[in-house]
């Protein structure tokens, strides 16, 4: 029996990540063009890449949503119609926007579906009704909204509802932080956020003699909602969004694979009582993340949602490479993303099925010279492995690495 599940919406920070997300199971991806989006640091898509990305996703039944969620200025709006016409011709599936000026411009120039970005901080039923009257078809709710509240908003408004299920979180109500504007001269609502909320602050309480306290009090833990998939489904949430257009290929592939595996399990079984649940959680711990929290998904986020640590990288795994070509019974061509050795602990992530270890009998340059260490930015040959396909990710366990030896 096929049970209903929400759409899994993955980030696509680049064309390559789009392909990885779709192949690893995302039902939809969201991406930004060269302008108008908030993630200026991610690669973003040129017009040519948009054409290729949309075709790739559509050929595989996945949808593409284009993010236009900066707070746009008058001049930007003048340039927007041309881009809208292009996107309409491409038949992208929706635009994600946060500004009423953008909504009005879209409605004047094309018939594309409009999703309201989380940047607009839509938090209640009445707000959803307002946006509905403005022509919005789907609302990406603020991360402060619980699943139960989201269910009520959906029921009362009749709109499609999208919620974040995984990823980094802004500590502020989205769109309500201008720290970077005033401290760094960079508009955080136009892609210039300097992440000042991740800094350590010394806090002096007013009217006390107490010494200053040092704290990362504004830094939020990351959201993880895999255990709450039943609640999302019960509430009828239409789309589960993963944050992270700036994140790695490893991240794009892993979250797409883990969440789609979990949702597919539900699709066929109608429950999540899978022995794989621990494995899925384990996989989510292998990608770059801060400590996880369920944020406000069940109850409003409390002090346990504060990360209160310096940002640090203690990843156990890193991406080693991406398979470019598979020559049956001969070799795999791998685009090396980070250096690995012949005898490193490597694992291959198939699009379907379990992750398995990969031991290398040889490691060669593309012209066939034996090497013991690959270097990033090169293409190498490793032994052929049955079932391995183009765009499969190869990752490396680094937890036992000693700095300087890799």
């Amino acid at each position: 029996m096929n049970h209903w599940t929400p759409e899994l919406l993955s980030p696509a920070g680049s064309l390559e990540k789009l392909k990885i997300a779709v192949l690893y199971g995302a039902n939809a991806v969201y991406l930004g063009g060269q302008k108008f989006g908030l993630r200026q640091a991610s690669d973003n898509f040129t017009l040519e890449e948009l054409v290729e990305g949309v075709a790739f996703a559509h050929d595989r039944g996945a949808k593409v949503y284009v993010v236009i969620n900066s707070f746009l200025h008058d001049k930007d709006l003048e340039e927007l119609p041309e881009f809208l016409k292009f996107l309409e011709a491409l038949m992208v599936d929706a635009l994600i926007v946060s500004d009423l000026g953008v909504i009005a411009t879209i409605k004047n120039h094309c018939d594309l579906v409009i999703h309201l970005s989380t940047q607009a901080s839509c938090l209640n039923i009445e707000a959803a009704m307002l946006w509905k009257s403005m022509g919005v078809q789907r609302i990406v709710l603020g991360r402060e909204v619980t699943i139960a509240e989201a269910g009520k908003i959906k029921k009362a408004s009749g709109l499609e509802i999208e919620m974040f299920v995984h990823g980094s979180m802004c500590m502020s109500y989205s769109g309500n932080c201008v720290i970077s504007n005033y401290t760094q001269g960079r508009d955080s609502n136009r892609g210039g956020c300097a992440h000042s909320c991740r800094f350590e602050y010394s806090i002096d309480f007013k009217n006390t003699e107490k010494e200053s306290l040092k704290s990362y009090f504004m830094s939020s833990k990351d959201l993880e909602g895999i255990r709450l998939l039943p609640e999302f489904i019960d509430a009828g949430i239409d789309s589960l969004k993963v944050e992270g257009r700036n994140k790695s290929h490893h991240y794009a592939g892993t979250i797409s694979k883990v969440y789609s595996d979990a949702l597919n399990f539900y699709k066929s079984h109608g429950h999540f009582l899978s022995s794989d649940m621990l494995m899925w959680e384990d996989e989510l711990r292998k990608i770059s993340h801060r400590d996880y929290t369920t944020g406000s998904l069940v109850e409003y986020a409390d002090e346990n949602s504060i990360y209160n640590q310096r940002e640090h990288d203690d990843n156990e795994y890193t991406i080693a490479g991406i398979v470019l070509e598979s020559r049956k019974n001969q070799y795999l061509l791998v685009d090396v993303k980070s250096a690995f050795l012949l005898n490193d602990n490597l694992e291959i992530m198939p699009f379907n099925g379990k992750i398995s270890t990969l031991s290398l009998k040889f490691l060669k340059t593309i012209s066939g010279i034996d090497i013991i260490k690959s270097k990033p930015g090169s293409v190498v040959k490793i032994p052929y492995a049955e079932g391995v396909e183009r765009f499969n990710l190869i990752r490396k366990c680094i937890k036992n690495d000693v700095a300087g030896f890799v």
Partner: protein
Amino acid sequence: MKLIIYIETTKEFDLFLNEFDNQFECEVVLGCIELSRYTKTSFEDLLILINIANKKKIPVVLDWDILNLESRFKKSIAVLEKIPLHDFKAIRLQDPGAIEYIKRTYPWLKVQLILENGNHNLVGLKSWRNYLGEQCDKLILSNELSKDHLRQYASSLDVPIEIQVLGRILLFYTPRLLLSPLDKKNSEAAFLEAYGSSEESPHNGFPLIENQHGTFMFNVKDLYLLDHLNELSEANITNVRLDLRFDSLFENHVKDLIRFFKKDISEKELKIKNDHIRPMIKGFYNVNKTDILFTKLKNKRIQRNDEYYLGEVVDVERNNQIALLVKRDGEIKENIKKLKLVTPEGKIKEIELKWIRNSQHEEVNSFTKNEIILIPFFRGVTVKTQVYLSSTT
């Protein structure tokens, strides 16, 4: 010029009335802790303040500027229903839910729309204004807008514009309680105040507040535009707001400020600028370059951009070969033997191919999209070089 001022206590109202005697237009903003972001006025005190205003015939506006999660929304409405709304000239709203609710439930009540978050384009401002129709009393705009934009908007909109000209600049608003976990002893306090400084930021002493609505952070410098009132008035920006709610500003300076608005004293005679505990700035009033200063991190030269695109260099073996990930099907004809290569540094090289091989080193006459092909080595070509069919062919 109309003065907009928050009053939070009867003592403040007395101080205000001691000096103000209707010599200029004024609007008093009243709120209560349930509806306003950071007032300390209780619901009971709000009712007293309304009474005073009525007696003195001072126009008052109700402040409902919090963002409302669904559960909070119900509480807000319950409070609102107990407030004599007919005593107010208008209500100030930011949450689109509150706007929608007031529009539907109290169509006679004028709305002052707080559009201080974003809303940096005229199309959007006009859309908000049209959405409210006759109910729209004014638009309260962002202090990130420069005077040129303000002037343009004021001349294009048919409702008044209000901006803040004095007081704290709000930087950050979260519903999460971030201070009380640090001060367990006082964690039950309804209103915590602190200052935050970071070694990672050149700025020190960000004022912080925590109350039942969450945590708020303000800029280390306060806004001061009182020396621009004539300019604003000429630009048809006729509503200017003073926020004296913090740092004893009301107590210490309201008298002076009213005298200034009465034109009894000049701006130069105001003591506030010198007395204030934090420096004062003009913010983005003169110019806002926050999006110009931010340069895109992406190297434009490694982005593909035209119809002759063939692919990208993924490996270079010095003096031997270059590996190319091709992005289109092709045959080895004359026109494919000439290539244009654009390196990440922007250098352009035109080259002629002697051979093309597949990854097994077999010479090939055609290739397919997404295949790796090998071409001879050319000096200066690095990984991520973009490869185009020579446009002359």
